[in-house]
C-alpha cells in the first residue's frame, strides 16, 4: 500500500525507516498538543508572558516562520508572473513550505490570543488602521490561497489522481494558478509588510517605531523586501537539507544557484535600505526623548547585535550570494543562504523581543523573559508539524519534479 502511494520512478526509504524518522516528530507534536491543550483550557497563565512581555516566543515564531515562508509567494510570483520556468523545480516544495509556515503560524496565533472563539470579531468589527487587522485579513486569505495551491500537489499523488474527478479538478485548478499566484503575491506584500508595520507603528516603543512613508512605517517595506530576499534562501536551504537527508539529488544544481542569486540580489538591496533606515532612526529617536545609544547599553543587547544583524548576517551573505564563484560551490552557497536566513531570524528577534525588553518609562527596568515549557513545546510542535507535513509530502507527493528525471538519467 505504502509503495502504491509513492510516485513512480522515485525511490523512498523503506517504511520502517520512515516510521523511525517520524517517530520523534510525532512525540514532539504530541507534547506540543498537550501544551496547547493546557493553554486553551487553563488560559495563557501557562505561559511566561506577562503584561510587560505581552508578546513572547509565539509572536516571534509567527514573524519568523512567515518571513521564511515567503519563499512560497515569491517563487510563485517569479514562476507564474515573471515566468522564470526553472523555478518549477522547487515550486511544489515552496508551496508546501509556505503552507506549513502559514498554517503553523495561524495555529499558534489561535493559541496566543486569549479568546480564540472571538477571533472572528476582527472580521466583524475590523479596525482598518490596525496592522494586526491587515495581518489577520491577509494571512487568513493567503492561508486559503496556500491551501488551494497545495491541493494540486496533493491531488497529484499517484493514487489520488486515479480518481477522475480529482485529476480533472487538479488540472483545471492548475490552469488558474496564475490568478492565485497573483493574489498570493498581493496578499503577501501586504501582510509581510504589515508584520513589519506591527512593530513599526508602535509610537510608544521608540526602539521599534519608524516614521511613516505614505501610510506605512519603513519597517513595512523592509519586512517585505527582507522576506522576499530570504524566502528563496530558505527554499534553497530546505531543498539542500532534504537532499542531504534523503541522499538524493532533487534539483539540478543550477536551480539552487539561481535561488541563491535571486536571494543575494534582493538581500543587498535590503541591507542598503536597512542601513539607511537605521541611520534615520538614530537621528529621529532623539526627537522622541530617547537616546539611541541607551537602547544598546545593556550588555545582552549591545551594539554588537546591530553589527551582527546588518553586516555579518546581512552584507556578508548578500555579497557571497552575488558572487558566481561562491554559488558554484554548494557548501559556500548553502552557508551563505544559512547566514541570510539567520539574519532575518535575528532581525525578527530584535524587533519583537528586544523591543519589549527595553524600558520606556523613567522608572522601568530592563526586562528579561524566558518562555515556559508550554510555550517552548508549542513552538516545537509547529516545527514537528512542519517536519511531518514535509516528510509525508516528500514521501508521497511530487515536491521536486526534476528528481525523477535526474534519477532516470
Amino acid at each position, binding site marked *: 500500500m505504502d*509503495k*502504491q502511494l509513492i510516485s*513512480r*520512478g*522515485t*525511490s523512498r526509504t523503506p517504511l520502517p525507516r520512515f516510521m523511525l524518522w517520524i517517530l520523534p516528530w510525532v512525540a514532539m507534536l504530541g507534547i506540543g498538543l498537550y501544551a496547547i491543550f493546557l493553554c486553551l483550557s487553563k488560559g495563557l497563565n501557562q505561559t511566561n508572558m506577562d503584561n510587560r512581555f505581552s508578546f513572547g516566543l509565539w509572536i516571534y515564531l509567527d514573524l519568523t516562520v512567515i518571513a521564511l515562508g515567503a519563499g512560497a509567494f515569491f517563487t510563485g510570483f517569479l514562476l507564474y508572473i515573471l515566468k522564470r520556468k526553472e523555478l518549477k523545480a522547487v515550486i511544489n516544495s515552496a508551496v508546501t513550505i509556505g503552507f506549513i509556515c502559514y498554517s503553523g503560524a495561524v495555529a499558534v496565533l489561535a493559541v496566543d490570543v486569549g479568546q480564540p472563539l472571538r477571533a472572528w470579531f476582527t*472580521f*466583524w*468589527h*475590523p479596525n*482598518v*488602521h490596525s496592522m494586526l*487587522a*491587515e495581518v489577520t*485579513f491577509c494571512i487568513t*486569505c493567503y492561508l*486559503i*490561497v496556500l491551501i*488551494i495551491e497545495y491541493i494540486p500537489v496533493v491531488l*497529484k499523488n499517484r493514487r489520488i*489522481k486515479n480518481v*477522475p*474527478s480529482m*485529476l*480533472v*479538478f*487538479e*488540472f*483545471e*485548478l492548475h490552469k*488558474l494558478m496564475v*490568478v*492565485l499566484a497573483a*493574489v498570493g503575491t*498581493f*496578499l503577501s506584500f501586504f501582510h509581510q509588510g504589515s508584520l513589519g508595520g506591527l512593530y513599526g507603528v508602535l509610537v510608544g516603543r521608540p526602539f521599534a517605531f519608524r516614521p511613516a512613508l505614505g501610510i506605512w512605517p519603513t519597517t513595512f517595506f523592509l519586512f517585505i523586501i527582507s522576506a522576499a530576499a530570504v524566502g528563496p534562501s530558505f527554499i534553497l536551504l530546505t531543498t539542500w537539507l532534504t537532499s542531504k537527508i534523503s541522499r538524493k539529488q532533487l534539483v539540478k544544481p543550477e536551480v539552487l544557484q539561481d535561488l541563491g542569486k535571486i536571494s543575494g540580489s534582493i538581500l543587498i538591496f535590503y541591507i542598503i535600505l536597512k542601513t539607511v533606515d537605521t541611520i534615520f532612526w538614530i537621528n529621529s529617536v532623539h526627537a522622541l526623548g530617547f537616546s539611541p545609544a541607551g537602547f544598546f547599553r545593556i550588555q545582552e543587547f549591545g551594539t554588537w547585535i546591530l553589527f551582527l544583524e546588518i553586516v555579518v548576517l546581512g552584507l556578508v551573505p548578500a555579497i557571497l550570494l552575488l558572487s558566481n564563484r561562491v554559488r558554484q560551490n554548494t557548501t559556500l552557497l548553502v552557508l551563505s543562504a544559512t547566514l541570510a536566513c539567520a539574519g532575518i531570524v535575528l532581525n525578527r528577534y530584535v524587533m519583537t523581543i528586544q523591543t519589549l525588553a527595553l524600558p520606556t518609562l523613567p522608572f522601568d527596568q530592563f526586562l528579561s523573559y524566558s518562555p515556559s515549557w508550554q510555550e517552548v513545546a508549542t513552538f516545537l510542535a509547529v516545527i514537528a508539524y512542519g517536519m511531518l507535513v514535509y516528510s509525508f509530502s516528500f514521501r508521497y507527493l*511530487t515536491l521536486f*519534479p526534476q528528481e*525523477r*528525471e535526474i534519477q*532516470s*538519467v
Partner: protein
Amino acid sequence: MLSLVFAYAWSTGNIIFLGAFFTIVAIIVATLVTTTLRTLRALRANAAEAIRWKSDFHDMPSSSRTCRHVFTGEFERRVCNNEFNCNGCEQHALLLAQQNAAAMPVNAQMNPGFALPLDRLYSRGHTWTKQNTDGTYVIGVDDFAARLIGTPSAIDLPAIGTRLSINGSAWNFKKGETSVRMLSPLEGEVVETSDGAQGWYLRVQPLSADVKTGHLLRGAEVGPWIQREFDRLQNYLADPKIGLTLPDGGMPVRDFTAEFPEKDWDAIYSTLLLEP
C-alpha cells in the same frame, strides 16, 4: 464590516481596505467556482481521459517525449510539447508537406530483434491498431511491451460500449503488485474484448468516419523508435557497477520482467509505457 454593525462608519479607510479585502475574497471564490464548474463540465463531457493524458504528458521526462521526427533523422533533438498530438502540430504538417515519408526505407538494422509488422500503426504507448474489413479496429500490444511485461498476472479490460479516447486508458495489465495502463491508440467504442490469445485485446468501432490516426507511428519511424525504446530499457537494466551485460548478447528475451526481478519495474513500466 457592514453598516449594520455597531459603530461602523463609511470612512475612506474602511472602503479601501474592505473593498480590497472583498475583491480578494471574490477572486478566490471565483477561481474555486470556475474550477469546479469546469471540472463538472469536463467530467460530463467524458474528457477525463483526455485530460489525464494532457496532465501526465507534462509530468513525463523529456526522454519519453522525443518527437517522431527525431526517429526519421530530421532532428537531432526535439522534445514534443504537444501531447504527441501530431494532428495539431504545425511542425509535423510542415515536415509532411516537405517529404514523402513512405519513400523512406525501413532500416532493418535499427530493429534490435522485436517483431513489429509494418501493416499496422503504433502508438507511443506500445499499443498498435489495425483496421478490420468491417471498419472496426483491433488494438493490441506490440512485441516490445509484450516482452517487457511478459505474462501479466491479470488483465483488466474495459466493458463493452466503453468509449476510448486517443491516448486515454484502454485497459490495464496487472503484473505482480504493479498495474500497467495501456494507452488507446485511437478514439472509439469498445465492441469486443479478448484475452490476447489472438494477438489483440480490443475491437473498437470508431465514433466517426474520420478516424484520426495521424499521430500514430508507422513505416520507417517504427524501427528507430523501438531501437530508442530498447536503449532506454537497457539503460534501466544495466548494472551500474559493471555496465551493460544483457543475456543473448543484447537480444530481447521473452520476459524481461521475469529475467530481472530485482529491478524497479514499476518505474520502468511508468517510463516506457508513458504512465508517470
